[in-house]
């Protein structure tokens, strides 16, 4: 017996000619230094990364810079990517958030510099670009996430950037569900505490 799914599989097969590699194969190839995998990763996730950066930064030029930094940084640092520990997409999204946080920090430094030299300019800049509490919180949290022990960071990145459930994370990582949950708890509690100390919303 067949149903409507059959036809889409036929079509999918045609589409798949363009890209036959699974995400897992792509991740492995990337880690192994296959340049075509960098190009393919850009085709698959370049738009996602550029869009996330644009939304976080509100600036196309900065988002272009971040997108470039993500792929250049990921390619140069590919030895630190372990396909066993998580998908290439999650890893790239983790780098994206770090680069976005760096860009926000640079921006606020730049703003302080301007404020220091021009009083009139300061009023203008403050009105437009003063970091909101949520931006400060994001920068603080991105930094803390980066400092977490690797297992805690991995499960949280999968939950944050890929919206995976705890059960799906357990399946992906091969960790027992109880371990995934306790890593989630430890990581999230630490991020919350960091925010209570350093966050913007007081």
């Amino acid at each position: 017996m067949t149903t409507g799914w059959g036809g889409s599989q036929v079509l999918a097969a045609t589409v798949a000619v363009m890209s036959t590699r699974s995400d897992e194969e792509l991740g492995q190839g990337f880690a192994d230094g296959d340049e075509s995998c960098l190009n393919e990763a850009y085709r698959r996730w370049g738009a996602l990364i550029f869009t996330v950066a644009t939304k976080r930064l509100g600036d196309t030029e900065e988002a272009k810079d971040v997108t470039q930094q993500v792929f250049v940084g990921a390619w140069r640092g590919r030895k630190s990517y372990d396909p066993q520990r998580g998908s290439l997409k999650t890893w790239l999204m983790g780098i994206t958030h770090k680069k976005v946080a760096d860009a926000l920090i640079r921006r606020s430094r730049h703003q302080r510099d301007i404020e220091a030299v021009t009083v009139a300019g300061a009023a203008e800049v403050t009105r437009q670009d003063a970091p909101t509490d949520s931006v400060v919180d994001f920068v603080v949290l991105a930094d803390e996430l980066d400092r977490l022990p690797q297992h805690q960071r991995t499960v949280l990145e999968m939950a944050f950037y890929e919206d995976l459930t705890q059960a799906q994370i357990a399946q992906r990582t091969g960790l027992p569900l109880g371990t995934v949950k306790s890593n989630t708890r430890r990581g999230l509690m630490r991020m919350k505490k960091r925010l209570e100390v350093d966050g913007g919303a007081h």
Partner: protein
Amino acid sequence: MEHTDEEALALMAIGENPSPPDEEHVRTCAHCARELDALRHVVLTMKGQPLQEGELLPPPADVWDSIASELDLPHQHEGAGGNVGEQDRTGGQAPSPTPARTRSRRLSRLSVTLAACAALLGAAAGSTITWWVTRDGTTVSVADGRRLDSLQANSAGYARLNGASGHRTLTVTVKGLPRTSGYFEVWLMDRTHTKLVSMGVLDSKGRATLPVPNNIDLREYSVVDVSVQPYNGKPDHSGDSIVRGQYAG
């Protein structure tokens, strides 16, 4: 009552379904509600706003050129620039599909809509299988399981019983499933919906072909039901049904 423990709060904050006592507790306990809010703030700040369908912006073509030249790669412009926006549109919301799978999922929706129409035509014509040619020129065959009643907007289910006594299977297809961190379970019920047998779960495409034990009297258990179940270890029907009705065959 004791406060909800940290792990339950953390899991609630990250989107897992809470147990009813935990849910009740945070509703009435200001301390735990504050803790949950603080944890949720962490999660929402990191997740950002979910990307909407069609919101994905293809990066300008010179981004790849800059990457390639910074890394001193031979130019692989072909395939890199033009169709970036056609890839993963699900943002951070779903397990990463390959482009082919993303595409096929969108096509599946179309196909199932067609399947729904075709099923009605097939039923009207009295045939069991209707062949359908999509606008892409690809032939899709459609089985006409009986349409079940939709108990949630946007969901449509079909069910059919196949095979003779001893090798009976129940095939269920549901399109337009709601998002859940749980799973979808298939049940057989009697007409009063008081007696239930759990049959199994739907796969990620919203389909299942499930063996029907010989000793189940299908004259009594004549109704099929699909529920969304929280992932909480409780085997009972959640009370949250998506489709329900009599199966064909």
